[in-house]
């Protein structure tokens, strides 16, 4: 009986800690909103972060999109061939990329790359007292450090998703037409026929939400780091895990709302 009570106690504590953390991250989001519009706007910081999150992730996203599109074409072909529906491979790849795989895989890749970097950089600043130095100089760390990163995540992840969608469709085309010998005209025609603007837009809305999540979680974990190098390592790992799980869970709810 004691063991059951102890297990329930542990479970309860974990649940409460996660609820508390979700609340704190939401409060950070409100703080970001408040500081975002207070002049002077730190444009240089924002652009620097947009370059880091966006421009420097392009190669990674192109690779992700291309190979995902290629494997989607391969996998769907074998299924559709049974019903002589190979001509639908193109639209299947396109719909999968735009509605789901593009936003989710792009966000997970950017989380691994940029979300972890945000946690590590802010965590290191925390343990080397650079964040205290900002407070001492009457500068607000949320405005200087977190706002640019959150804006970068929110704006750049949808743009990267567009790149991912496009390269995914191109990869799918390459495999479908040149390896699986699907008629190129029909491949493209069915994409145009079956993919609606709504499919693309809703994917981008999801991507924007995911970008917000990954940057808020990365910044929150880094900003609240305690305990030296080990603390920074822990914060970075926790940021990637929490952001990834949050993206996957919110993906379901956003998809359910939008479709």
């Amino acid at each position, binding site marked *: 009986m004691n063991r059951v009570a102890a297990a329930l106690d542990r479970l309860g504590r974990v649940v409460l800690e996660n609820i508390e953390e979700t609340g704190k991250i939401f409060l950070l989001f409100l703080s970001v909103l408040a500081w975002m519009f207070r002049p002077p706007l730190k444009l240089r910081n924002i652009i620097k972060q947009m370059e880091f999150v966006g421009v420097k992730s392009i190669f990674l996203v192109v690779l992700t999109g291309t190979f995902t599109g290629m494997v989607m074409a391969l996998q769907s072909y074998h299924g559709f061939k049974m019903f002589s529906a190979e001509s639908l491979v193109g639209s299947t790849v396109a719909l999968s990329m735009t509605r789901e795989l593009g936003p989710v895989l792009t966000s997970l890749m950017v989380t691994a790359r940029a979300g972890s970097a945000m946690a590590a*950089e802010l965590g290191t600043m925390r343990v080397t*007292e650079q964040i*205290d*130095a900002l407070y*001492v*100089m*009457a*500068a607000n760390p949320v405005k200087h450090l977190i706002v640019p990163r959150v804006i970068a995540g929110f704006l750049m992840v949808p743009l990267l998703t567009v790149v991912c969608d496009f390269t995914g469709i191109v990869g799918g085309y390459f495999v479908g037409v040149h390896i699986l010998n699907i008629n190129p005209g029909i491949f493209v025609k069915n994409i145009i026929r079956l993919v609606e603007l709504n499919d693309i837009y809703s994917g981008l809305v999801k991507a924007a939400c995911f970008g917000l999540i990954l940057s808020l979680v990365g910044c929150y974990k880094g900003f609240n780091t305690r305990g030296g190098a080990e603390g920074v390592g822990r914060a970075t790992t926790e940021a990637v895990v929490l952001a990834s799980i949050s993206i996957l869970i919110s993906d379901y709810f956003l998809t359910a709302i939008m479709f």
Partner: protein
Amino acid sequence: MIKLVDLHKSFGKQKVLDGLDLEIEAGKTTVIIGRSGGGKSVLLKHIIGLIRPDSGEVLIDGTDITRLGDRDLNEIRKKFGMLFQEAALFDSMTVGENVAFPLREHTRMKEEKIRRIVANRLHAVGLTGVEAKMPSELSGGMRKRVGLARAIAMQPQIVLFDEPTTGLDPVMTEAINRLIIETQKHFNLTCVVISHDIQSIFTIGHRIAMLYEGKIIAHGTPEEMQVSRNPVIVQFLAGSIDGPIRIM
């Protein structure tokens, strides 16, 4: 100018400040000494409002900063500069950008004027031509000097030093001490220095205060401290393991 009244602060079960009272004289250098882990840095952070006490008052020019909101606290912070233990330079910025940071943040000075002030402050700490370097390219002593240049960029009234000579060789220690003395005199600063380097304490301190078990147990001139009969002070200044101070 700075007055700490009956400060209490605990972290979990550990009581760090236990009814601390201290008055820091304006225009002088006060050195706070005490055991490692005894609460000196915590005390310093209370003075600048980085930590709020569980109870008590921190009066800066008569205003209790423990009751202030962020905006008012920031106005008070503009009177301060602080040199952190590892300098806490922003490692994504150059030396020049670090020193210019408070000027760009709080003034609308033209870039040319900011550049001149930065060069002037770096020169005052014995560095020239390093504006383009990154903090990672500097030695520990140089980083501290840049940190000091940044701390005095806005010509503050009060400068706090968190163990300015810890980790430095004897020559660099003497150079930093000299710098603290000259800067204090030149800008007529109120300096609060945390240190446990006994030699430095007597070199730079106009007043010395000893923090022991959460309270200030003695506060006087270097001469008064040297002739003190308090066994805690005697043991600490002698660096002896015999005495009331227990090795933890």
